[in-house]
């Protein structure tokens, strides 16, 4: 049979989870990571990263909106997906996705963004007319009170939401890891480390993405990048990356040393079919290289320009590495037979329902949503909603 080596069970010819299921943990990881970066400022008082606070929230929202789409596209019967809400199966790890997702979207992210932007939304409504005014009226939910005591309440609720949001973000992505880590039939997935590895890799990818977005958007707006902010984000990226890498190496070491019944099959797979995506792209290019670059910035004093370039490079490499990690988990976990006697292969097709084209579209879509969000709810301290790109000169308009 083409693409098959050795013996696989007859029903294993078709790979069950495609590139779309690779996107699912990748995208939710970006959401969780971006949110945790935002919470640094709000809860952990790392005020120096404030310029990215709102951008991180909007990035999280843009990607969260897209997160369920690859799943929907993948289902054999997407029209029945509502059953996950109506008749969730209590023992299923997957059944909770809808609830965790809705909780995170509505109870955490949307609420937090709304409270954070409420003052500006009310001001924008007051100063606009016609359709725009109607839109802002809807967005303010009819609330017009922005006196000092109301804003204090907003601030307190926002803080509480972030406090709730941190464990929620952990839940969102740790849970995605559990979906894979709890499959005992699959030794490549089945490890209690999976949720934690997913969590830290999520933080790496989310922080890297917000860092890159901040650099790109600030540059596009012709503003000066806040270097202390950028340096701090890069430092956090470095720290979480070290934890992430240590956990992954711990997993690898454990597998190699224990060498259980599945080891030979998995070892062979890593040395053949997964060599490029796992060893080369994920570990060398996507992890070790950015780690060395980020470490270099910590150790050697470099010019701002050089630092910016290194951050941009290491951020991009980190994103590539984390994507490769998701790929190697999801696709790699299906390339070997559960008989441990053979291997199959994954062929990525182009323009089918689960092909490369929809995958690329789903990766571009969050950026389009983010662009719209940034336009409508500018995350910059110097721009107000409803006054797109008009610089406000009188006082602080930020939160």
């Amino acid at each position, binding site marked *: 049979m083409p693409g098959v080596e050795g013996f696989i069970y007859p*029903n294993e010819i078709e790979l*069950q989870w495609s590139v779309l299921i690779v996107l699912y943990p990748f995208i939710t990881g970006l959401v969780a990571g971006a949110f945790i970066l935002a919470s640094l400022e709000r809860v952990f008082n790392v005020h120096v990263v404030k310029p990215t606070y709102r951008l991180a929230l909007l990035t999280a929202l843009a990607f969260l909106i897209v997160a369920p789409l690859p799943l929907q596209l*993948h289902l*054999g*019967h997407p029209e*029945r997906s509502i059953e996950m809400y*109506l*008749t969730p199966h209590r023992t299923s790890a997957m059944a909770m996705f809808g609830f965790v997702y809705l909780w995170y979207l509505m109870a955490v992210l949307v609420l937090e963004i709304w409270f954070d932007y409420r003052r500006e939304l009310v001001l924008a409504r007051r100063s606009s007319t016609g359709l725009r005014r109607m839109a802002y009226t809807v967005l303010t939910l009819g609330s017009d009170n922005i006196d000092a005591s109301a804003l204090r309440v907003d601030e307190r609720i926002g803080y509480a939401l972030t406090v709730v949001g941190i464990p929620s973000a952990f839940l969102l992505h740790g849970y995605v890891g559990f*979906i894979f880590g709890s499959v005992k039939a699959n030794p490549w997935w089945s490890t209690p480390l999976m949720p934690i590895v997913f969590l830290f890799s999520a933080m790496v990818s989310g922080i890297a993405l917000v860092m890159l977005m901040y650099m790109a958007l600030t540059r596009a707006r012709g503003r000066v990048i806040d270097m202390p902010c950028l340096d701090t984000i890069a430092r956090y990226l470095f720290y979480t990356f070290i934890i992430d890498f240590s956990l992954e190496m711990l997993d690898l070491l454990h597998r190699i040393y224990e060498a259980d019944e599945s080891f030979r099959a998995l070892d062979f797979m890593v040395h053949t079919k997964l060599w490029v995506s796992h060893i080369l792209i994920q570990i060398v290019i996507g992890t070790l290289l950015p780690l060395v670059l980020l470490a270099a910035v910590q150790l050697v004093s470099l010019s701002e320009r050089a630092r910016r370039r290194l951050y941009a490079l290491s951020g991009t490499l980190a994103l590539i590495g984390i994507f490769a990690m998701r790929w190697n988990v999801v696709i790699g976990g299906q390339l070997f037979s559960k008989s441990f*006697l053979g291997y199959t292969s994954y062929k990525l097709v182009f323009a089918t329902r689960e092909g490369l084209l929809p995958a690329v579209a789903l990766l571009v879509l969050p950026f389009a949503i983010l662009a719209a969000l940034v336009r409508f709810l500018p995350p910059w301290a110097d721009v107000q909603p409803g006054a797109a790109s008009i610089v406000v000169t009188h006082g602080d308009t930020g939160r």
Partner: protein
Amino acid sequence: MIEDRRSFLRDTGRFLLLTGAASIAWEHVLAGTPDASPNYALTDHWWGMVIDIDTCIGCGNCVRACKAENDVPLEEGAFRTWVERYQVDTNDLDHPRVDSPNGGYDGFPELRSTGENVKVFFVPKLCNHCAHSPCVQVCPVGATFESPDGVVLVDKSYCIGCRYCVQACPYGCRFIDPRTMTADKCTLCYHRITKGLTTACCEACPTGARQLVDLKNPKDPVHEFIRTHAVHVLKPQMATGAKVYYNGLDGAVR
């Protein structure tokens, strides 16, 4: 203002509650009453299968009978039951050579020379109808379930086609039916066994290598068979409560 908010919340709450209740009630109405089967009591049975490796000749009758009886797609990757052929070299027990061309549907090509120290045997496989099925555990909507008489079934009108159950089965017993895009698997010919018949695969087996057994029936010869033979289940380390018992199962079989 406060009054408005209160009444808004009250009305919204009522609306959500009532429409929810109504939709659940309507679902029950639509589901209707199940077919009456007066002679079959679910709680009187606990189904499984006994497979005798030494007796299987690898003819593939069971595979063909299953596909015909259950309208299983004839294409690759769609088997409710299949047969594997193992060749185990006594000098290299860790690396058995295994084949299962088209799941054994067309039988097996003759082996010209196997070498002197090679043992060859056939292993018929099917869903193990586990008592603690990992596939049932993971189904997000409960479309697949263990029946009270010990059979793992799929409600195809409910399955959302997420394929999590296919991933969760350690034995490779599930596949997605390309016609319905839902999970498919051995039903242990539920439509037959609840009417007092045996499964199509057991019926078609010329050597009696496969036997449907009812572990709750004290008169079933399975009790005598298991008492007097060393039987094994596949992958016992998975602790799935598999109910397909193999007699003469070689340690090389995965």
